[in-house]
């Protein structure tokens, strides 16, 4: 079981080596080093997983203490690992998808001057994510949580010389901070109530309802920040400023699922509070619908995927809030596969078109990208929940749970499914079918950039092997991944695997009648197909359809602007008030008063400083006389 240590250690070593020796390693080598480290970590995870498989279900939890991190009085926080089904499951797809994306990046980042820095951040990110997941207490987990935030900041702002990238990175960081405050308050509450952060201590005690509600909501606030739920979702679409593998890695497969993980991990706390459960599921459903509507009208290939990610994350929370953690996690894993696939394919498209991201300037690419096109299609079908691809099965499970919770939630879920199919169809049609529009636009954009490639008669080209191999692997996973938890034939591996963590006391079993299940499945398939059909119908011929693209959706319901106006505006005014009135008048006034008094007294006292040595000597002797006087007084008494 000592392979457990290797899981975080290898990416850490990779990160350290790349941090200090990255410049010397140069281009391909540092990428390969990072890949090897990530793959090694994945292999170690697999080994641990296999060894866990060999154990009794109840014994599948191992603690590994690395060192005592915070030995303060009675508080002992360990830097320790907890290897249990949940954390290993997360580790598996984090390291697995992470390895593929690292491999993909070698091709994608080719020629970048900061090649090594990118891989340093990737490895550091994987390490942080592993720590987040494997930690055996909330505090150490928070360490990984913040590490993930930091790496995300570094990766979104990787091209920090672009204004938009820098702003996006800042936005992501700040938004995440808001969520982090929730997490931190949760930590304080934990410490105050339990005096410990260990999952073992915390998750096995009985909590009163209101405390549990507060704690759960605070934890959920952290999850909202990290997983881009309402109201803290705005950073995720902007995060597409980062290199595409980053979008794939962080903003689809791994980092954003940290919130899902946290909620799943905290299930024993959340189940004490039905209010928290309702909050989670409602926010999840609302986010899913809202993001789906916005996704319908985005033109940036990555932004569509970003909003779909937000939407799918909403599904996951809907599942978790409805009490079926297994379904939520199932969807997380499936989503990791197909969303990574979609992003990487989108990256390949962007790569092929030399950094063109606007879908309206694409079209007809299926002829030029023989590997990317089918890969993207598989991802599209999985996301649109067309059976038998991944997305259908997990989404079906969530919808069943939502039906059980409340038909209204289910209705929202189904509507979202329709929209999902619609906007994904729109994307596929715009990108891969229709007329080739990239040529004209390349001319339009003139000599800027390297579009002379087309003028020389060149065509979009397929990506190198390092990029296509991950696509193929992920495509395979997207086709077959659903078998991990198929609802028939005893294949519900994830459910069984996670059963020890979500005993009936925590997540009461519920049953939906088989007939209802069939009905739910058929309805959702019908809606998905309807979305698909309407998408094809609407976008098969036209590129611009103003009536289908209202500005309100293109601007994401003006929420960003609204937030800026309502939050930032008053905040700015308040800051101005503080800056000019309180700081400028009051504080500065006080400071100036103090300094002014010193200056004034100095001006007066300066006369004492005549520059005549004898005057000073006079002062000194006067002091001596006074001291002598005091001494003789004391001696006399």
């Amino acid at each position, binding site marked *: 079981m000592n392979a457990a240590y290797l899981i975080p250690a290898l990416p850490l070593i990779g990160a350290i080596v790349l941090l200090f020796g990255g410049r010397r390693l140069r281009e391909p080598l540092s990428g390969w080093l990072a890949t090897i480290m990530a793959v090694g970590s994945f292999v170690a995870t697999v080994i641990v997983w296999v060894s866990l498989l060999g154990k009794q279900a109840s014994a599948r939890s191992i603690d590994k203490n690395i060192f005592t991190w915070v030995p303060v009085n009675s508080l002992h926080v360990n830097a320790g690992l907890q290897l249990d089904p949940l954390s290993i499951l997360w580790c598996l797809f984090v390291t697995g998808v992470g390895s593929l994306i690292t491999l993909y990046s070698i091709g994608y980042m080719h020629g970048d001057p900061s090649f090594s820095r990118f891989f340093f951040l990737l490895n550091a990110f994987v390490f942080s994510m592993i720590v987040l997941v494997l930690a055996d207490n909330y505090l150490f987990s928070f360490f990984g949580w913040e590490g993930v935030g930091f790496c995300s900041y570094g990766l979104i702002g990787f091209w920090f010389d672009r204004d938009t990238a820098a702003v996006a990175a800042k936005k992501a960081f700040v938004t995440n901070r808001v969520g982090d405050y929730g997490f931190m308050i949760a930590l304080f509450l934990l410490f105050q109530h339990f005096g410990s952060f260990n999952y073992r201590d915390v998750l096995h005690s009985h909590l009163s309802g209101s405390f549990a509600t507060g704690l759960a909501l605070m934890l959920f606030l952290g999850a909202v920040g990290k997983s881009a739920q309402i109201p803290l979702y705005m950073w995720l679409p902007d995060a597409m400023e980062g290199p595409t593998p980053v979008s794939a890695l962080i903003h689809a497969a791994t980092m954003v699922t940290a919130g899902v993980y946290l909620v799943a991990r905290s299930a024993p706390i959340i189940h004490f509070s039905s209010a928290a459960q309702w909050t989670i599921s409602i926010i999840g459903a609302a986010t899913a619908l809202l993001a789906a509507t916005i996704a319908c009208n985005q033109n940036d290939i990555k932004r569509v995927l970003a909003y779909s990610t937000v939407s799918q994350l909403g599904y996951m929370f809907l599942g978790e809030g409805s009490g079926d953690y297994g379904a939520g996690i199932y969807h997380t894993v499936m989503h990791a596969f197909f969303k990574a696939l979609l992003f990487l394919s989108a990256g390949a498209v962007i790569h092929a078109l030399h950094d063109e991201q606007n879908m309206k300037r694409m079209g007809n690419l299926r002829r030029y990208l023989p590997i990317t096109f089918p890969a993207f299609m598989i991802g599209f079908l999985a996301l649109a929940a067309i059976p038998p691809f991944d997305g259908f099965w997990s989404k079906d499970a969530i919808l069943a749970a939502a039906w059980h919770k409340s038909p209204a939630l289910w209705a929202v879920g189904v509507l979202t499914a329709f929209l999902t199919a619609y906007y994904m169809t729109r994307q596929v049609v715009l990108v891969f079918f229709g007329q080739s529009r990239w040529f004209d636009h390349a001319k339009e954009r003139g000599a800027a950039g390297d579009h002379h490639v087309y003028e020389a008669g060149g065509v979009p080209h397929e990506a190198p092997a390092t990029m296509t191999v991950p696509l193929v692997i992920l495509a395979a996973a997207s086709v077959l991944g659903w078998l991990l938890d198929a609802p028939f034939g005893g294949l519900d591996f994830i459910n069984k695997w996670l059963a020890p963590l979500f005993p009936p006391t925590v997540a009461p079993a519920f049953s939906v009648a088989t007939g209802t299940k069939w009905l739910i499945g058929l309805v959702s398939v019908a809606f998905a197909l309807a979305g698909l059909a309407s998408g094809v119908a609407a976008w098969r011929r036209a590129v611009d359809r103003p009536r289908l693209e209202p500005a309100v959706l293109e601007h994401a319901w003006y929420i960003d602007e609204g937030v800026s106006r309502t939050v930032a505006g008053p905040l700015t005014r308040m800051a101005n008030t503080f800056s000019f009135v309180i700081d400028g008048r009051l504080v500065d006034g006080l400071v100036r008063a103090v300094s002014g008094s010193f200056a004034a007294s100095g001006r007066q006292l300066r006369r004492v400083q*005549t520059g005549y040595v004898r*005057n000073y000597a*006079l002062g000194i*002797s006067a002091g001596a006389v006074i001291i002598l006087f005091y*001494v*003789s007084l004391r*001696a006399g008494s």
Partner: protein
Amino acid sequence: MLAALLADSSGQALAHASAWAVFAVGAAMILTGALGVVLLRNPVHCALMLVITLFGIALEFIDQSADFLAAVQIIVYAGAVVILFLFVIMFLGVDRKEAISAEPTRFQRPLAVLLGVVALVEILALSRIDHWSAGTPSQSGALSGPGSNVQKLGQAIYTGYLLPFEMTAALLVIAVVAAVVLSRRHQPSASEMSELDQEELLSARRFTPPDQGDQS
């Protein structure tokens, strides 16, 4: 009276009287000299008055059996320090009389006198309170006893006070170096000269007859 003094074989009275006499002469010299230093207007006269005070101090030292210190006092102070003062006075030509009447700050002089008097009164009062001396006797070796004053002083300096002694040695060296550095005129070295200067210097050397040029 003479007869009585002659008859006094033990000589106690005369010894007493001579001790007092030495003290009185010393005190008179000290006070005269000090007043002279403070009041005389010519720096050279002041220096001479300082010498008188120093001799008075040396006398008081001898009166208290601090022979060695008396000698050192004269050698160091009168023989070196004041000579140095005179040297500087003469070198700089500052032996003109000081205009005492011109005073840049108004209350300087009366205040100074007042402070001096008050300090004196306080010191005396303080001494009176403690019956002139307070302290535990003989911390670092007895003053009385067999052996000469010089021997005992040497013993103390080279044993208990060795470190301060060596530090004063270092201090003196530093002071000498500092004095040399401070009072040296800056002479440009060859590297600091302009090429023109060097040319000039070289040509000047060339035309100097060699057997008269370098004689130092």
